[in-house]
Each structure stands twice: as structure tokens, then as C-alpha cells.
């Protein structure tokens, strides 16, 4: 194994492969920064260019690009409250709150450092898990994956507010997200649900316009009515100093970062759950790590742990989702499905061959993820303080630029004006939620998980009737979901 690992490193460091990786990193850097340009779309656009490349060069290019998208996606989330990627929306919650407190540098430092830790954990998991992953993936059928989605929702909903009422609101928001995920043509019977006879809604609500609306629009309104900069009245000089503080935060909460990385890797391994889920699960876990209710109240108000968790999970999921893609040819996400196309274009068949005959290529992917993230984080740190300085620019100068990004980001999802209306509609809803003090995270996780949960619930019921509820792993997951819901009550009671 060590020999193959070394061989994989040498393959990536060949000048041609390294050059393609740098090109990929450059592309991924901007794709991550710009809202609306998704990592998956860019992978698909770049796929035709790999025809003439060797496998190692092609994967250095594609994975180098893909591995850094989530890393730089966090930057716009932190600076403007505008998710650069659907997979970096969870970073907005506490990252942007830190920015408003004048801690943009610290938040960016934490996001990038945790991203790097996450990427390394994911890559190590990919290297180590390939021989043992088969039984794990096979243990999780549709019933288990459905329950895993429910556990994720329980995590977020139960932690999104104070007391019983906060929890009820969390579940209402999650339920609304799940319900809105059913908009569009239903995959089982082909019924057009809640489409109001409009063709645009047949394919359902696209995640990007919803996310951009619900997170960015309320912040634009807030910035407008405050009339000052994003960092508000933070002391001069504080904003741009703090990137290293963010790095130190990563090491202060090192085990939390590692745990969130492992959550991301695990979600990545499970086919069909996807990267958008991993960040929210990690956010839920980070919030749960708060020891007292007072400490938990800090989440959403700018707690650095709310940045570290999603930052780490976002990047570790890449290594995780490569595991089933490489080992079984079962892609863990849309991006991995496109990458699978890359395998086939290059004449590689995912499966046992990738673990024996082409194992050096497989390990070159591990190295690509690590090296690409190290380079990106190092480059970002050179500009981090300047980037953080943007938050001290007058709000009225930034608002039109952010609005242009908001509308273009939404429009590029489907190239349809309906995307813009969806953004404004959910912007209104996000604004109401902020004013009412409702958490937006459960709603987003509900929307992300809705289609997946419905599909798995249908398959479970059709295949096992109600007997799926008695499967051992399902029972364990039900117990975890109940424990997650009961934990805040138990904690409150214990504290009297």
C-alpha cells in the first residue's frame, strides 16, 4: 500500500499532471467564489477536454478543480452572506454573523483551515477505506438511508431554537422544506404536484435560487437599512486581522473539526445523500457540542464552531464520495456521477481494477485532493486580510454588486426568469424568518433532503411494507433521532 501511495504522489508531481492540476485549481477557485456557477456544472463543461489526457492528468485537472470549489465557496458565504455554492450555505449562518461583528478575517481563517483539515481527513479516509468499505455501504439500504435523513433533520430542528417552542419552530421549518421539495413531477407516478400548471415548476424548485434568496436577500435588506458597512461599527483594523485567530480556532476545537470531517466523509460515502446534506449534519453536530443553553444561543450569532463544522465537512465529503465511485462505480453525488463519466471516457472501469491494476491512479486522486487544497488555502491566506477588508467598504457601494451576483447566480441555475422570482419569493420568506427569529437551517435541510427522503421512504415501503421499521440499523437510528430530540429537554432538566 505504501509503495502505491508513493507511486501515486510521484504521478501527481509529474510536470504535466501538476500543470493540469494548477489549471484546475485556478478554475475551481473562481467557480467556488462566483454564486451560481456550480462545481458539478463546471465539471461537466470540462469533461470534453480530458479526451487527450492520460488518466492521472485528467483526474489531477478535474479533481483539482472540484476539490477547491467548496473551499473558496465559503469565502462569499462568509463575506456577503451569499452562498458561493449550494454546499457552502451552512457557513453563512455563523460565518456572516461573525463578519457583521467585524470578525471576517477570523471567520475566513477558520473556514479555510477547517476546509484543509477536512480535505486531508477525507483523503486519508479514501486511502484507508477502500478495502473495507464494501460491508459498510451494503449495510445501508433504502430504509437506513431514509432514517439517516430523519436523524439529520432531528439534529438541526431540535437545536435551532430555545426550548420547546424553538424546537416546534425548527420542526415546522424542516417540514416546510420537506413539503416544498415535493413540488414538481413526482418520480414514482409522474403526477405534477403543486406546479400550478406552470412548466417551470415541473422539475421542482432548484436549490440555488432558493438558497440565494433565503440567505442573501435578508442580508441585503439589513445592509441597506443599516446604511453602514457589512462589518458595521467594528473597531478599525480588527476586521482584517484575525485570519490566524481563525486558524488557531481550528486547533482549539481540533476534535470537533475532526468529528465534523468524519461526518462529512460518512455522508460522502453514502450514495445519494450529497454534499449539501453533509454541511448541515456537521453544523447540527457542532451546535450540539455546546455545553450549556447559553453557549448554544451563540450559534447563529457568530460562533466560530458554526464555521468550523460545515467548513470541514464540505471538503471531507469529496474523499468520502470518491470511495463508492472508485470502488463500485456507484457515484455518491452529482459531481461524482460526472466524474464517473470521466472514468469511462478514459477507458477506466471503476471497481476491483481500480484497487489492483490501477491502484496508483486511485492514490493519485488522494494526493490531488490534498495538494489542491494545500495550494488553495496557501494562496487564499496571501489575500485573506485584503478580502476581509471588503467588509469595511460602504454598504451602498456593495449592494448593487451583490445584487448583480444574486440575480446572475440564480439565473444561471436554469437560465429562466422563474429563477429570479423564486429568489425574490424565498428572499421574502427568509426576511420574515429572520424578523421572527426562526432558524433557516432546518428549512434548507428539509428542502435538500426532501426528494432523497421521499424516494427512500417509497422504496422502503414498497419493498418491505412496514417491516423496514424493524431492521436493526433502522431501530438504532430511530433511537438516535429520539435521543437527539430529547437531549435538550434532558439537559434543561438536569440544569434545573
Amino acid at each position, binding site marked *: 500500500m505504501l509503495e502505491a501511495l508513493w507511486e501515486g504522489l510521484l504521478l501527481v508531481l509529474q510536470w504535466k499532471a501538476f500543470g493540469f492540476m494548477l489549471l484546475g485549481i485556478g478554475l475551481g477557485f473562481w467557480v467556488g467564489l462566483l454564486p451560481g456557477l456550480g462545481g458539478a456544472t463546471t465539471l461537466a463543461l470540462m469533461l470534453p477536454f480530458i479526451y487527450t489526457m492520460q488518466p492521472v492528468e485528467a483526474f489531477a485537472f478535474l479533481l483539482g478543480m472540484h476539490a477547491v470549489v467548496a473551499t473558496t465557496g465559503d469565502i462569499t458565504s462568509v463575506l456577503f452572506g451569499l452562498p458561493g455554492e449550494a454546499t457552502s450555505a451552512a457557513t453563512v449562518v455563523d460565518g456572516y454573523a461573525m463578519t457583521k461583528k467585524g470578525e471576517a478575517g477570523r471567520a475566513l481563517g477558520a473556514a479555510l483551515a477547517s476546509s484543509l483539515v477536512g480535505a486531508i481527513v477525507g483523503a486519508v479516509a479514501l486511502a484507508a477505506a477502500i478495502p473495507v468499505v464494501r460491508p459498510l455501504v451494503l449495510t445501508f439500504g433504502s430504509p437506513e438511508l431514509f432514517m439517516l435523513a430523519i436523524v439529520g433533520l432531528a439534529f438541526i430542528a431540535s437545536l435551532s431554537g430555545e426550548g420547546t417552542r424553538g424546537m416546534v419552530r425548527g420542526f415546522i421549518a424542516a417540514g416546510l422544506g420537506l413539503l416544498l421539495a415535493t413540488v414538481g413531477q413526482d418520480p414514482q*407516478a409522474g403526477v405534477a404536484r403543486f406546479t400550478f400548471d406552470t412548466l417551470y415548476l415541473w422539475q421542482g424548485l432548484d436549490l440555488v435560487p432558493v438558497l440565494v434568496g433565503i440567505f442573501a436577500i435578508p442580508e441585503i435588506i439589513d445592509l441597506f437599512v443599516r446604511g453602514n458597512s457589512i462589518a458595521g461599527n467594528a473597531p478599525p483594523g480588527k476586521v482584517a486581522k484575525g485570519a490566524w485567530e481563525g486558524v488557531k480556532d481550528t486547533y482549539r476545537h481540533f476534535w470537533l473539526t475532526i468529528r465534523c470531517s468524519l461526518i462529512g466523509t460518512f455522508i460522502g460515502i453514502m450514495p445519494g445523500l450529497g454534499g449539501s446534506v453533509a454541511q448541515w449534519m456537521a453544523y447540527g453536530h457542532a451546535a450540539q457540542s455546546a455545553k450549556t443553553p447559553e453557549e448554544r444561543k451563540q450559534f447563529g450569532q457568530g460562533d466560530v464552531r458554526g464555521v468550523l463544522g460545515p467548513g470541514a465537512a464540505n471538503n471531507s465529503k469529496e474523499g468520502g464520495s470518491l470511495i463508492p465511485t472508485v470502488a463500485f462505480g456507484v457515484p455518491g453525488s452529482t459531481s461524482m456521477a460526472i466524474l464517473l463519466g470521466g472514468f469511462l471516457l478514459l477507458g477506466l472501469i471503476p471497481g476491483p481494477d481500480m484497487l489492483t491494476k490501477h491502484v496508483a491512479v486511485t492514490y493519485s486522486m488522494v494526493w490531488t485532493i490534498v495538494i489542491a487544497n494545500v495550494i488553495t488555502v496557501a494562496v487564499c491566506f496571501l489575500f485573506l486580510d485584503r478580502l476581509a477588508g471588503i467588509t469595511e467598504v460602504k454598504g451602498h457601494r456593495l449592494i448593487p454588486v451583490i*445584487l448583480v451576483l444574486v440575480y446572475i447566480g440564480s439565473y444561471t441555475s436554469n437560465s429562466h426568469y422563474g429563477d429570479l422570482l423564486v429568489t425574490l419569493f424565498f428572499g421574502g420568506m427568509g426576511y420574515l424568518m429572520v424578523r421572527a427569529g426562526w432558524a433557516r437551517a432546518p428549512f434548507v435541510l428539509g428542502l435538500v433532503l426532501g426528494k432523497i427522503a421521499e424516494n427512500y421512504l417509497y422504496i422502503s415501503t414498497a419493498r418491505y411494507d412496514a417491516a423496514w421499521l424493524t431492521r436493526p440499523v433502522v431501530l438504532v437510528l430511530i433511537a438516535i433521532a429520539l435521543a437527539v430530540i430529547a437531549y435538550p429537554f434532558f439537559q434543561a432538566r438536569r440544569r434545573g
Partner: protein
Amino acid sequence: MARKASLALAVLILLAAGYAVFAAKGWQWKAALFPLAIGIPLFCLAAIEIAWTLAAKEAPEEPAPNPALPWAWMIAFLALIVLLGFPIAVAVFMLVYLKAQAKEGWLFSIVLTAAVWGAFYGLFDMMLHLPFPAGWLFEWLGLA
């Protein structure tokens, strides 16, 4: 404001859940299973939240700033995009906003507008060839 916003949200969600349950009743069970499984508990939870809000005493709150003006700008930009198409709307909106709302000088407004428009056009139109249709106004006038 928080109480009113909470009540408005809960009422909207109650109506949405009620409609979802009502609509799902007419579908095959395959299509109706999930909306019913979510819609019914959601309706009940929203009703509880409304009752909770109405029963709670109204606490004195700080008056919230009026969000009408930022909404007006956002809706106006959307209308410009639909009527004039993205490339023209971006330039017009940037310039008008910077002059009329941000009260910036001509030089700054023109330079920032040109920079943003250049980045938008260079990246999305020239490099990525994203389809930005001409505005409806040009279609109505037969110029598109």
C-alpha cells in the same frame, strides 16, 4: 415585529400545508404518500404555533426599520432584467443605483459600473456563452 412576522409565517405555512393535504387527496398513493406524511403534522404544528403566538402577551418591541425601499430596488432590478435583458439591465441598474441611492460621484459610478459590467460580460457572455435573452421590450418592438 417579531410577533407579527412569526404569526404571518405560521399562517402562511398552515395554509400551504392545508392546501398540500387537500391537493394530495386526489392523487395516486405513490404520489400522495410523502405530501400527506409531511403535510398533516405540519398543519398541526403550524396551528399550535399560531395558538401559541396569539395566547402569548405582546411584549414591547423596538420598531423595525422599513424595508420597502430595498424591496423596491430589488423588484425594479428584476423588472429591468425582464424588460431590457441582463446585459443592459446590469449597466443601467448599477449606474442609477450608485447615483440615485448611494449618492456617489459620476466618476466613481461610471468606473464601478464599467468594471462590474465588464466582468459580467467577459465571464458569463464571452467565456461561458450563457444564454441571456434580449428583453421583452425589444421583442415587443420587434428589435430582438
